[in-house]
């Protein structure tokens, strides 16, 4: 498996929407390389016949009655928002232009 490098970290940081300085990218790449190296043995442990476990205690078909319960009012839902207008969350431009 390829080691993680600075370009990988820069790409992952873009995907994860975290701005990183050049210094941060250098440091993070070094740290992550060590961590990835220490966990890569995991990929060699289990054979193809071993099923994956996503949930420690399997439950299925968890439903509730189809009735309206307590829900937040618009004012409550917007109470922690940095910006809002007309009962909606307000954000800057969503298209990448001036």
């Amino acid at each position, binding site marked *: 498996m390829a080691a993680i490098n600075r370009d990988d970290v820069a790409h992952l940081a873009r*995907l994860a929407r*975290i701005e990183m300085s050049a210094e941060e990218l250098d440091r993070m790449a070094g*740290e992550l390389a060590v961590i990835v190296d220490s966990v890569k043995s995991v990929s060699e*442990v289990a054979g193809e016949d071993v099923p994956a476990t996503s949930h*420690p*205690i399997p439950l299925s078909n968890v439903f509730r009655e189809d009735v309206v319960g307590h829900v937040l009012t618009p004012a409550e839902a917007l109470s*922690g928002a940095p910006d809002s207008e007309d009962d909606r969350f307000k954000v800057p431009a*969503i298209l990448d232009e001036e």
Partner: protein
Amino acid sequence: MSSFEPSTELIRLSAAALAAKLKAGEVSAVEVTQAHLDRIASVDGEINAFLHVNTNEALAVAAEVDGIRAAGGAAAEELHQLAGVPIAVKDLIVTIGQPTTAGSKILEGWRSPYDATVVRKLRAAKMPILGKTNLDEFAMGSSTEHSAYGPTRNPWDLERIPGGSGGGSAAAVAAFEAPLALGTDTGGSIRQPGAVTGTVGVKPTYGAVSRYGAIAMASSLDQIGPVSRTVLDSALLQEVIGGHDPYDSTSLTDPFDNLVAAARTGNVEGMRIGIIKELHGEGYQAGVENRFNESLELLKEAGAEIVEVSCPNFKYALGAYYLIMPSEVSSNLAKFDGVRYGMRVLPKDGPLTIERVMAATRAAGFGDEVKRRIILGTYALSAGYYDAYYGSAQKVRTLIQRDFAAAFAQADVLISPTAPTTAFKLGEKLNDPLAMYLNDVATIPANMAGVPGLSLPGGLADEDGLPVGIQLLAPAREDARVYRVGAVLESLLEEKWGGPLLAQAPVLDSNSTVAGGSL
């Protein structure tokens, strides 16, 4: 402190003892709550266990309990047995009327418009909430040093870590600032702080306590649980906060109402207790190993049968955990985007688009450890690596569950040290993420398999005089067993020590000089 002071005596009582005194009318809920608020005012400048102190509301709830008791009648009869017993809440759990920060700058000043289910249950039991406790940012860490609001200090030695992520809850209970607290445990965040502060902490069976309103870190591993100074107190608290919750789709319908009775059983005769071969010995501090062996001897003398079990796949648990947990972290923390709650930071220059605002907000709002885990998780989930990393880790999870199943065929309860070492110095492992991760080597398997785990004080390590934790594990849904064995072991150890371990902790006083200089 030389003279007898009723308030200092009150803060040293267990929750069960406080409940009995309240019911008998020997003390009022306001007196009990005020004694703890006074203690917080006196020592928390040094400890930094609390991020927010909820003085007015806590006293109002206490006064309400006193009013109901004074009026008598059915309402007084119906009061919950813990009514008026105060509690601290980890600041990862949302509360109406108090800030919830998760230890992060990105949520500074945010107030939740709803209560977590466990908080609703505390309110229904009329337990005064003293405030919100410090933690590693978004519960990511083993030392509470990753909090954006400064580290919490260990009451046994102010230059040492109180464990993490729930160092605030454990330190608050160890420093007698609260008799009870709530924690959350994803890889050991309740049990490891319990171990290094000489307190009790329990991670219940996954789904035994609702996670609704606990800010999610890794949803398939996270679990809310009790923090206390005695095993019985944790059992009392788990019965308050547990039970099925339709707001959490992973919540179990089992009743979990036999925990207090289990803690009061008083014997372990004929129980098979399994030593996990892979979770002691090499890599564990000598003083930890000594206290562990001493506990085994006591249990054997009490009539338990000690057997050795092997869990060969546990050695892969830490690696698998550091793939599954960050993967879930990268997904769960995507919601902190500067749109719906918390901080919004505008980029310094360039076009003002939502993507750039998100990137600037998350850069400024998250600390290093959170960023590391988000990037690691994004990597483990990315195309080309998913099968090798996340997929393989999920298979290892199956192997760990099989190891537990085989072990529980031979033993009713498993036992190990909770953490490989006692509390280390602040700063010692801060720049070495891998060394920090190793603290959780013995606690992570329980989260991977969803089984319950309890940590209780096992004594002080010979070489440094610091607390050692003993961990008990039981099969899923058998939480009662860890309370039963834990309470017996606790009473045997306290008999040996001549009182609770925390009676040996240094006296904290705002006016006292701190060993090693001023802090």
